[in-house]
């Protein structure tokens, strides 16, 4: 019977990647003053990876990790002090292990220079230390290699166990069974040691044994049987050479090749094999077909609550269908309550399902300590990273896609934000710069802040550069936030500032685009000399949106709740027609341009005059506009259906949804609408928006 463990490879890989991340983050914290748990956790992770890799025969991983483990072991038990250089090697080793395990995952051979280099470095480090590194090797195998002594002999074994032997779970009978597997065994129990009945303790062992084993096995084979009890017994093994006629050849073969799997004959081995054979093909295809399908590890409690909710849904459903069988108006009340229950069930179920996709943002954050560590080395600037709110939960897809933009922002902060130590000290700041990553919930959104205490953004330099690039008119008067937004313009980044660190092909425009494609937005705040904060606002999930339903003419539109600042009825004395047909509405200290939706989408609306019209004030990219609508309908969660997948991309529309009555409603894309309005209004609209914003500043 052979047991196929290949189905466990994906979970081993997943666990290994987690282990590597843990190793990395712990190593970054590791120094001479670290508590023992830090190094222990690194050791454990390496240990598990080595063990798993060994099981599956990923020998290069096993071998490499063995060296890593040895080094860690020396650090762990104090044979080696924890030096920064060694930690650096260990960090490199983690990279190598990741490369190797990725290669295993992708089923490719891994030949990276770095691995060879690091491996040599590791062994050198180990060698440089007076080591007993090989204590960890498996001496177990050596016992089995003595196949030379094949001549049959008779072994006399005297086995005198200590009285407490059985209390460690060892059982003489089973030891003898193991001996019997080696050859022909006769057992004689001696009762000399038995105490008087009154002195006898039922939990102690008083017997001793004299055994005779006729076998071609070696002394080591016998010793191996008694390996676990050798300190708890007196064992005398004597060999009497003699030819044995009755020793079957098969037995000696068995000894030479000791992989006897003949467990409990009573077990239903046959059915088991069938089961294994049947499950094999699917395992194979499963492990090979798509390694990157992606999986989420979900707490059992979350799954249980789901099952619970589905159960309740089923109860509600059966109640309703029973009600529908012979419905009359007298049952209306029950119908209403049933529907309410259905609403409740659906809502809870939805929340529960969404929660399954939610992961703590630490999954995205945990690569940053290493990144900042490396950046600090590369730039020669001292800096530390503070991570806050890493338990804030976020949709898995959003998390995966926000990683790269965040990396770019952190790189930027390290490269352009933080100044060199001399400059910092001269400015009266601590020599060590700080980059803070923070995540928190705000409304239905998650906010991620990347904050540095560096030099801040120099408005003049950006303006000069943007003017030179023709991105802005030299005469334009811009607010700070508009100036900062120039950072995100395509083509802003200049060759002169591209460094090894931040100039890796992705510009800030891509960062902004990625964030917007996730339905999020990014804002910049900066104080000269104090530092900058990049604030990324993201929806918690991509599949469902909290929306405000509005009516324009005969159409229903959905405005994402996240974009809405407020809704109001326009008062005529606050309306200000500046020029052309552009209307501004005075909203406290702001002048908000009014966009009539019916004009944008060319509809026939009931309400065409701004006076007394309903305005929904929305904000995107730091720009507020008032959307003129006929009526405000309900607020509800809507499931987003892609328009591009089902029809085609439409400017100003981000998607569609199906409402309760079966009709389709478009979801407004607020940044897109503002852009659209700008395009339509071109001269006057754009200049007015410009003006109005200028006034606000």
């Amino acid at each position, binding site marked *: 019977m052979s*047991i196929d463990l290949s189905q*466990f490879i994906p*979970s081993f890989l997943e666990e290994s990647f987690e282990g590597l991340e843990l190793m990395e983050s712990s190593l970054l914290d590791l120094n001479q003053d670290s508590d023992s748990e830090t190094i222990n956790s690194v050791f454990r992770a390496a240990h598990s990876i080595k063990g798993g890799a060994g099981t599956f025969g990923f020998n290069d991983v096993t071998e490499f990790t063995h060296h890593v483990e040895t080094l860690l072991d020396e650090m762990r038990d104090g044979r080696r002090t924890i030096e920064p250089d060694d930690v650096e090697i260990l960090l490199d080793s983690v990279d190598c292990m990741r490369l190797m395990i990725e290669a295993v995952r992708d089923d490719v051979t891994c030949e990276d220079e770095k691995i060879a280099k690091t491996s040599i470095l590791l062994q050198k480090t180990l060698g440089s230390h007076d080591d007993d590194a090989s204590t960890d090797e498996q001496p177990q195998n050596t016992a089995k290699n003595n196949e030379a002594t094949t001549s049959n002999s008779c072994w006399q074994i005297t086995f005198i166990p200590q009285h407490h032997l059985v209390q460690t779970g060892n059982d003489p009978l089973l030891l003898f069974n193991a001996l019997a597997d080696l050859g022909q065994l006769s057992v004689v129990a001696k009762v000399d040691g038995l105490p008087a009945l009154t002195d006898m303790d039922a939990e102690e062992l008083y017997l001793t044994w004299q055994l005779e084993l006729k076998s071609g096995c070696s002394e080591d084979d016998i010793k191996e049987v008694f390996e676990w009890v050798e300190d708890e017994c007196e064992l005398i093994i004597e060999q009497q050479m003699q030819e044995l006629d009755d020793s079957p050849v098969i037995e000696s073969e068995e000894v030479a090749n000791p992989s006897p799997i003949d467990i409990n004959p009573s077990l239903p081995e046959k059915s088991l094999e069938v089961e294994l054979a049947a499950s094999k093909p699917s395992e194979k295809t499963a492990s090979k077909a798509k390694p990157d399908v992606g999986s989420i590890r979900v707490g059992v409690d979350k799954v249980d609550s789901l099952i619970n909710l589905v159960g309740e849904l089923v109860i509600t459903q059966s109640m309703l269908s029973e009600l529908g069988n012979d419905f009359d108006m007298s049952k209306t009340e029950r119908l209403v309550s049933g529907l309410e229950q259905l609403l409740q069930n659906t809502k809870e179920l939805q929340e529960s399902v969404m929660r399954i996709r939610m992961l703590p943002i630490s999954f995205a954050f945990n690569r940053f300590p290493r990144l900042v560590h490396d950046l600090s080395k590369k730039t020669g600037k001292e800096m530390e990273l503070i991570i806050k709110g890493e338990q804030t939960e976020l949709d898995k897809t959003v998390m995966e896609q926000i990683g790269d933009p965040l990396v770019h922002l952190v790189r930027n902060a390290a490269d352009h934000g933080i100044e060199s130590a001399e400059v910092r000290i001269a400015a009266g700041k601590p020599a060590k710069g700080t980059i803070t990553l923070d995540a928190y919930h705000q409304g239905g959104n998650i906010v991620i802040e990347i904050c540095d205490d560096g030099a801040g953004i120099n408005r003049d330099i950006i303006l000069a550069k943007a003017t030179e690039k023709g991105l802005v008119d030299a005469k334009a008067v811009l607010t700070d936030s508009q100036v900062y937004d120039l950072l995100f313009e395509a083509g802003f980044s200049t060759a002169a500032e591209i460094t090894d660190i931040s100039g890796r092909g992705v510009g800030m425009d891509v960062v902004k685009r990625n964030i917007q494609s996730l339905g999020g937005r990014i804002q910049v705040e900066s104080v000269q000399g104090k530092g900058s904060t990049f604030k990324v606002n993201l929806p918690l999930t991509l599949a469902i949106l909290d929306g405000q339903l509005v009516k324009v003419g005969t159409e229903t539109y959905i405005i994402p709740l996240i974009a809405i600042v407020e809704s109001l009825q326009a008062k005529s004395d606050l309306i200000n027609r500046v020029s052309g047909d552009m209307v501004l509405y005075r909203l406290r200290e702001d002048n908000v341009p009014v966009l009539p939706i019916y004009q944008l989408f060319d509809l026939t609306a009931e309400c065409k005059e701004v006076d007394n019209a309903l305005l929904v004030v929305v904000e995107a990219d730091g720009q507020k506009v008032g959307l003129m609508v006929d009526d405000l309908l309900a607020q509800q969660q809507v499931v987003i259906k892609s328009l591009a997948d089902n029809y085609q991309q439409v400017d100003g529309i981000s998607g569609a949804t199906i409402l309760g009555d079966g009709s389709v409603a478009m979801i407004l894309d607020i940044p897109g609408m503002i852009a659209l309005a700008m395009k339509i209004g071109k001269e006057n609209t754009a200049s007015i928006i410009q003006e109005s914003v200028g006034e606000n500043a």
Partner: protein
Amino acid sequence: MTKVLVVDDSNSIRDMVSFTLKSAGYNTVEAKDGQDGLTKAQGGGFDLVISDVNMPIMDGIELCQELRKLPSFKFTPILMLTTESSGDMKQRGKSAGATGWLVKPFNPEKLLATIKRVVR
């Protein structure tokens, strides 16, 4: 049916040990560290314990010591699953009350053969 308590902080190792045991007709209960193992052991009725050594919160050695204090685990075989086969490790395991040890890398056939030595 023979009931085995499998204690390992690595999901994959635990899954594999458990799978191997179930394939051979054993019943298993899994625990993710020593503390968890001790809690699950309280129910009793176990015929065998297989435990990793290196684990967070409570390691295998301590688990072994604690288990031996429980009346229902006085004679129960406890196998330590470990890569550290050095004499020191064995000594620590034995003095904590371990029955024996299994040396990683984990090999299903070897596991079953070894179990045969401690479970009737």
